[in-house]
């Protein structure tokens, strides 16, 4: 069982998350409206209430390995229903940035991989080439034929073109520079 000892170090993580996210987690009432509203909270994904409890209790490792913030799609439902107006997708970003800076292995590698492939596509061409990113993801996760049936139907209907799945596309040097300039500052 976790016992708080009152050491300032226990609070360092909490305050860092609060500062980076701009959200006052100390206001949290643990009422659970967030997790009750959350589309991705489930038996295996804790949901916002439990994630906040972990941060408040200084359970840094558990919080950084919590699947909730990886699953968070930033729908904003919990933010609108929270009586103290905590915006959890801002908290998700803070936890993701801390986890990356501290080299914590992503607890949800599939979600991480897709988001990374998506951003690489943006960095390369300035605009994401959705079908390319999906195709790369399916190849990298060894499911090359995932969604082939609906995909073929969409091709026959003329909704998408198989060409859009192939590598290539233009480039946008201005966007590539934004990526590199921000990387320099880190």
């Amino acid at each position, binding site marked *: 069982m976790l016992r708080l000892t009152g050491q300032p170090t226990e609070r360092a993580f909490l305050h860092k998350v609060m500062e980076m996210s701009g959200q006052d987690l100390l206001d949290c009432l643990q009422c659970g409206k967030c997790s009750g509203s959350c*589309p*991705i909270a*489930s038996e295996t994904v804790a949901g916002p209430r439990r994630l906040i409890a972990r941060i408040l209790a200084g359970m840094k490792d558990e919080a950084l390995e919590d699947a909730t*913030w990886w*699953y*968070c*799609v*930033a*729908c*904003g*439902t919990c*933010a*609108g229903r929270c009586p103290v*107006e905590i*915006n959890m*997708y801002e908290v*998700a*970003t*803070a936890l*993701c*940035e801390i986890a*990356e800076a501290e080299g914590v292995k992503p607890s*949800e590698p*599939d*979600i991480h*991989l*897709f*988001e*990374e492939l*998506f*951003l690489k596509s*943006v960095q390369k061409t*300035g*605009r*994401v*080439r*959705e*079908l390319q*990113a*999906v195709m790369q*993801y399916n190849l990298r996760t060894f499911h090359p034929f*995932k*969604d082939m049936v*609906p995909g073929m*139907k*969409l091709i026959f*209907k*003329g*909704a*998408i073109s198989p060409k*859009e799945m192939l590598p290539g596309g233009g480039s*946008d040097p*201005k*966007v590539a*520079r*934004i*990526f590199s*300039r*921000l990387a320099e*500052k880190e």
Partner: protein
Amino acid sequence: MKASYYPGCSLEGTAKPYDHSSRAVCEALGIGLEDIPDWSCCGSSPALKMNKDLSTALAAHNLALSETQSVEDVVIPCPFCFRRLLSAQAELAADPDLKARIEGAVEAEIQGTTGIHSLLGFLAERVGADGVRKKVQRPLKGLRVAPYYGCYLVKPHDVTGFDDPENPTSMDDLLTALGAETVDWDFKTECCGAGLAVSKTETVRDLCRRIVAEAVHQKADAVVVACQLCQANLDMRQDGGAMPVLYFTQLMGLAFGMSAKDLGLKHHLASPMKMLKAKGIVS
């Protein structure tokens, strides 16, 4: 009326019907759309999750590009792009240090005076139900639709400031003006699972199945959306179901007398064509 137009990546990829029908409907309503020159991705949910500065910078880059145009308003069909640009503009206005850092990264100054609108919001506010009604040539009589707003347009309300986060009605009003009947249902702003579609497909399938099942239960002929991600998820993840998932702009175009083919109505997995023919809306 003139406005800057930010299509976003999906609308030139998997959601061309949304792009084509949006442009056609705006033209019919006398709104001159001018694309943001050399627009880029807004970073979408991956940048928002993984790198806040990158997310803000990509949105700011597009804001700066739109500020070079001689129009006051930017109109955005994609709800995520809309919320991201709106949010970034507010963040930059509130934090001078952040503004300086982001302006350095994007090599441009941001005035922050652009009026940022979702396409649905722009049409609801600037044209309105009365303006839409005047353009109707082929009323959508007998069509019972379930308006589905999804998340990013209306939530969180302190960010988007648009409509009601729990029971929005702006799309209902436009659809009623087209002659359709709208279902008053509880699933208007339930989440479809958004960007998890690729990496956590089962989660998205569960969420979409619930939404489509409720639309079936409400005896809707179609679910009507204002987001390409909602469209893709609900259409593709209803497991071969027959519930059409259409863009509100496609229905506007139909009512304005445009052809089903030009509006991309033949591009959806759950085809609406048989149902629309049976109702005499398309021949």
